[in-house]
């Protein structure tokens, strides 16, 4: 049970993002896809079984506002976690750039999948105006996380700059 606590916390983080953080951090409608970032980070740093189940539950928590998409999102995020885990096994993810690229690709795939679920006529315009900028925004946040995790970005280093 104690081992599940971090994942329960991540689910609460997803809920917090969906209700409060998403509107605060959005810039002209472009949002950070924090749930997918969390799912991909779990896929990168944890084992396979954990990541695919967490991806499934994260998809369910994510779609509270659209319950009809619950199964789709759960399945997609589970599959995404599965894919990322295997890519991680076969790729060199030492550098921040490679991990950021992985995050960017995962977010872009999820954004495109969400637009397909919407079945909107203006798929391409939404892709260009929201999905792609959202991917860049999310990748930026992901890169900041990786820089911090690797110790390349810290308060002391920022103080040295200034």
């Amino acid at each position: 049970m104690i081992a599940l606590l971090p994942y329960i916390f991540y689910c609460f983080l997803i809920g917090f993002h969906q209700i409060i953080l998403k509107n605060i951090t959005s810039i002209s409608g472009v949002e950070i896809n924090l749930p997918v970032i969390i799912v991909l980070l779990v896929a990168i740093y944890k084992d396979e079984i954990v990541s695919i189940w967490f991806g499934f539950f994260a998809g369910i928590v994510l779609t509270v506002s659209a319950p009809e998409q619950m199964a789709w999102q759960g399945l997609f995020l589970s599959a995404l976690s599965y894919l990322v885990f295997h890519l991680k096994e076969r790729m060199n993810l030492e550098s921040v750039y490679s991990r950021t690229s992985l995050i960017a690709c995962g977010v872009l795939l999820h954004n495109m999948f969400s637009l397909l679920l919407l079945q909107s006529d203006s798929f391409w315009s939404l892709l260009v105006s929201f999905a792609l900028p959202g991917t860049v925004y999310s990748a930026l946040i992901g890169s900041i996380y990786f820089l911090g995790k690797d110790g390349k970005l810290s308060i002391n280093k920022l103080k040295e700059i200034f």
Partner: protein
Amino acid sequence: MSWLSSLPSKYAKNIHFGTILLIAIVLFGVGSSVSTPIHNVVYTVFHYPFVIIRTNIEELLVLSEKERQLTEILVESSVKISQMEEAQKENIRLREMLEFQPPANYSLIATKVVATAGEKLAILVTINKGAESGVEINQSVINQYGLVGKVNIVNSNSAIVELLTSQANRVAARITSSRDMGIIKYDFDEGMTLEYVPVQSKVASGDTVISSGLGGIYQEGFLIGTVSEVKRIKDDPFCTIKIEPIVNFNSIEELFIIKKTTP
């Protein structure tokens, strides 16, 4: 048979993913009868607490904005109330002035004080009427209570009035009860005094003092003040009479200039 026991560990990930796929298919198949309770549970656990927080924050922001608006309205209302109170006081003063009648052969030019000059007490005031309104030098200036001073300098649209508090301004005055005459003068230390009244005069505290008209500038009959103190010093042929002015020279706002209408 050992391959059977090793099967789950070898294909563990596929079994797990297959389970997830099966659950998803069930959710697709049964529709809202299963997904709705799941949705409700997930919403209650992972979303509802944050919904409450967000609602409270939004209410707080709305209340804060309302408070700011109400404070602005309150400040504006306070300013308006002050202005209205001032207007009411001016209304009362002007009504009193309307009841005032000028002497025969004289008319009144109503003016407003726009500036004052003087250190401890105003001795000169600037009014908003001048030569174009018929103001001339040495015209008497009064308000609804009594004599205030005389016109000293005249411009086209303004004029300067020398008040009775100016040490250079002397008024020929008369005590109404005893009919004794004297000269009104003002000193910053002693205040307003009536001089050159003989010691044998029957003047007493409370007697009113008016302008006598004998000085050549001020007309007769304008109220100047009341006697507040009478001193008779040995070997002095004159009384020392202190006068309490009828006009409050610290708060004059509207004035009348006495203008002669007939030559």
